[in-house]
C-alpha cells in the first residue's frame, strides 16, 4: 500500500487484518425456482471488498440491512469461509490456519453478538456460560473463577456472586449484554467484532454499553470492528468508518470527515437521512431515489446507479474502483 499524496505517513504499521478482494456468494434456492427446476439463485453477499485494519483501530462497518455486514464479520472470525479472496491476520491466511494456530486465533478474535438473549444458552447459568470458553481453551480449573471475576469487573458487573448463579431470563437486557461482553473478553482477545451490540437495548441502557465498549477497547488496546446501521452510534465509538452498499464498499475514511463531508452519493443520502434529537433539522428531500437494493439481482457497473441522482453512462458499464482522496477512499466514477 502506498500513500501517494497528503501527509507522509511516518511508518506504515503492519496491519492486524488485511482483507483482500473478498467475495462471498450464497446459493439460495427460491421455492419458485426449485419448482420450475431452475438453477438456484446466487446472492452476492460480499462482492469484492478490500481493507486493512491497523492495531488499536476501531472501524465502523456501516450500511443498510442486507448489505453484507454480518457476513463480513463472520468471515473475519473464520465462522464462515470466503468464496474468493483472502483474509490475513497478522500476515497469516485464515483459510490455511489450523491446529494450534487456529485455536490461538479463536481465542484472540472474538465476536460480540447483537441479541444478548440469543447469545447465551438459556439453560446455562451465567457462571456456566462464562466458564465455557475457558474450558474450551483448556484453562486450568483453579484459574477460571478468578478469570470470570476479572471479566465481570471489567464490564462493571461487580459482586459477581449476585449474578453468577442466575439464568439469562433473570437479568435485564443491559446486564445480559454486559455478560455477553465479559464472555467475549474473558480470553483476552486482541481483535473483536461487535455486531450491532446495542440494537436490542433501550436507549437509557445503550449509552452505558457504548461507554463500556470504548473504555474496554482503550484499556485493552483492542482492534475492533463495530457493525451497525446507525451512523450516530458508529460515530460515537469509531474513528474510522467503512460504508457498504450491496456487498461492496462505497466509502472508507475518518468518521468525522464522513459525517461532515460525505463524498459518495450513497453516503450523502445516508448522512442526510439520520434524524437528530432536536427540532431544528433539514426536511429537504433525500438526494437518492427510492428503491430496494436486491442482492440477488444487483445492477451492472456501480451497484447504486439505479438510485443515484448523478449516474451517467459509465456507471452502467464499469464498476467504480477505489479513488484515494486525502485520508479517504471513494468508490464512485464522479471522483476517478
Amino acid at each position: 500500500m502506498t500513500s501517494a499524496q497528503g501527509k507522509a505517513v511516518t511508518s506504515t504499521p503492519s496491519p492486524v487484518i488485511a482483507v483482500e478482494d473478498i467475495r462471498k456468494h450464497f446459493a439460495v434456492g427460491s421455492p419458485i425456482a426449485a419448482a420450475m427446476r431452475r438453477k438456484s439463485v446466487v446472492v452476492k453477499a460480499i462482492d469484492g471488498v478490500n481493507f486493512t485494519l491497523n492495531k488499536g483501530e476501531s472501524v465502523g462497518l456501516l450500511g443498510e440491512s442486507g448489505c453484507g455486514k454480518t457476513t463480513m464479520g463472520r468471515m473475519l472470525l473464520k465462522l464462515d469461509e470466503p468464496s474468493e479472496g483472502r483474509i490475513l491476520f497478522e500476515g497469516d491466511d485464515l483459510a490455511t490456519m489450523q491446529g494450534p494456530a487456529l485455536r490461538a486465533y479463536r481465542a484472540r478474535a472474538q465476536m460480540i453478538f447483537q441479541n444478548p438473549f440469543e447469545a447465551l444458552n438459556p439453560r446455562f447459568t451465567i457462571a456456566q456460560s462464562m466458564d465455557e470458553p475457558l474450558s474450551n481453551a483448556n484453562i486450568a480449573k483453579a484459574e477460571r473463577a478468578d478469570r470470570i471475576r476479572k471479566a465481570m469487573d471489567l464490564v462493571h458487573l461487580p459482586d459477581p456472586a449476585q449474578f453468577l448463579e442466575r439464568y439469562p431470563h433473570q437479568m435485564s437486557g443491559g446486564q445480559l449484554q454486559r455478560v455477553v461482553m465479559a464472555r467475549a473478553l474473558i480470553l483476552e482477545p486482541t481483535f473483536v467484532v461487535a455486531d450491532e451490540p446495542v440494537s436490542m437495548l433501550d436507549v437509557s441502557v445503550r449509552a452505558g454499553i457504548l461507554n463500556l465498549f470504548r473504555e474496554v477497547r482503550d484499556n485493552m488496546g483492542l482492534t475492533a470492528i463495530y457493525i451497525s446501521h446507525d451512523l450516530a452510534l458508529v460515530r460515537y465509538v469509531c474513528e474510522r468508518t467503512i460504508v457498504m452498499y450491496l456487498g461492496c464498499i462505497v466509502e472508507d475514511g475518518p468518521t468525522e470527515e464522513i459525517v461532515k463531508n460525505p463524498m459518495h452519493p450513497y453516503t450523502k443520502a445516508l448522512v442526510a437521512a439520520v434524524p437528530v434529537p432536536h427540532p431544528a433539522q433539514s426536511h429537504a428531500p433525500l438526494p437518492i431515489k427510492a428503491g430496494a437494493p436486491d442482492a440477488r439481482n444487483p445492477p451492472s457497473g456501480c451497484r447504486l446507479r439505479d438510485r443515484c441522482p448523478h449516474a451517467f453512462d459509465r456507471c452502467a458499464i464499469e464498476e467504480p474502483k477505489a479513488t484515494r482522496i486525502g485520508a479517504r477512499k471513494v468508490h464512485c466514477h464522479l471522483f476517478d
Partner: protein
Amino acid sequence: MSDNILCVKGLKVTYSVGTARIRAVDDATFDIPKGSIVGLVGESGCGKTTVARALTRVMAKAAGFEGGEMLFDGVDLLGLSEADMNKLRWRDIAFIPQSAMNSLDPVYTIEKQLNEVLIQRGGMNRREARARAEELFDMVGIDPRRLGDYPHQFSGGMRQRVAIALALALNPKLIIADEPVTALDVIVQRQILDTLKSLQERLGLSVILVTHDISVVAYVCDRIVVMYAGRVVESGDTETVLTQPFHPYTMGLYNAFPDLQSSEGLLTPIEGHPPDLSDPPDGCRFAPRCPFAQTPCSTQNPTLVEVGSRHVSACLRVDEAQQLREQAAQTQTWMGAI
C-alpha cells in the same frame, strides 16, 4: 375541548397474569390536538403499545380497563357498545400495529387485503374499491400496478407503506401507528416519515406515532408525550419539551441519545431499570433512578401540573426545573444515582 380530536384522562389498563396484576398503564393523561402528529415515547415496557391498543379497544385477553376516559371527538370510547366501537374502527380510528409489515397475510395479494377493508367494511363495490386502492398506492408512493403482488414481493419499507395505505383506506380522522419505522433503515425510515407527514398535512389527519426514538419525534411530531412505567410524565410541544424539559426522565432520555450534529459530549446512561409493574414503587415511579429524588419523592405521587402553554409535567420538583436542567446536563449527576 373541541380543538382536540382525542382527550385521554386517567386511563388505567391492567394485565392479569396468574395472580399477578401488571399495571401497564396507570393513570395516563394526554390530548391529541386535531390535525397534529403526536409522538408517544418511552422505554420498552412503559405501556406505549398498551395505550395504543386501548384506544382501539382491541386488546389482549389478559388486559382490562380499570378506569379513566378516552374522549374521541367528545364521545367516550369506553362508553360505546362493542358494535358502535366497531363502526369507528378503520372509518374514524385506524391502527397500524407494531411490526405491521410482518403481519400482512402472506397468502393473499395486497389488493385482496385492501378489498377486505374497502368492500367489507367500507361497503364499496369492486370498481370503487379498485379505484380507491390505486389512489391509496399513489398516496404512499407505490406503483399501483403492484396491487396484485404478494407481501413477500415487497421490501420491508414497501410493506410498511402498504400498512399505511391500509390504515388510510376509509379516510380515518385519527391514525395510531405503533413503531412504524423502528425496524427500517434510515433512508427508508426518512421516506416513510416524509410520506406520513405529507399525508397528515394534505388530509388534515391526526396521528399518534408510537416510538422509542426521540430523534423520530423531533423530525416529524408537533407534540410529544413522554411515558415512564405506565404513566405520562411530561407532554407538550416537541420543541419546548426537548429544549426546556421539566421532567428529570425527559432530561435523562435526551442525554442518552447520540446526536450526529453535536460536535462532542459523552452519552450518559440512566442507571438502573424501570420498576416491576406488578409491584410498582410508591410515590414517583422514576424516583429509584432519579438523581434529583428527595424524601417525599418515594411517598408522594406527583401529578401532572401545567408548566407552560399546553405543557405539563409530573415531578415534585417541577418548580426547580431550571436548576435541575443545568445539573442534568452534567454527566456526573447521573453517575451513582442508585
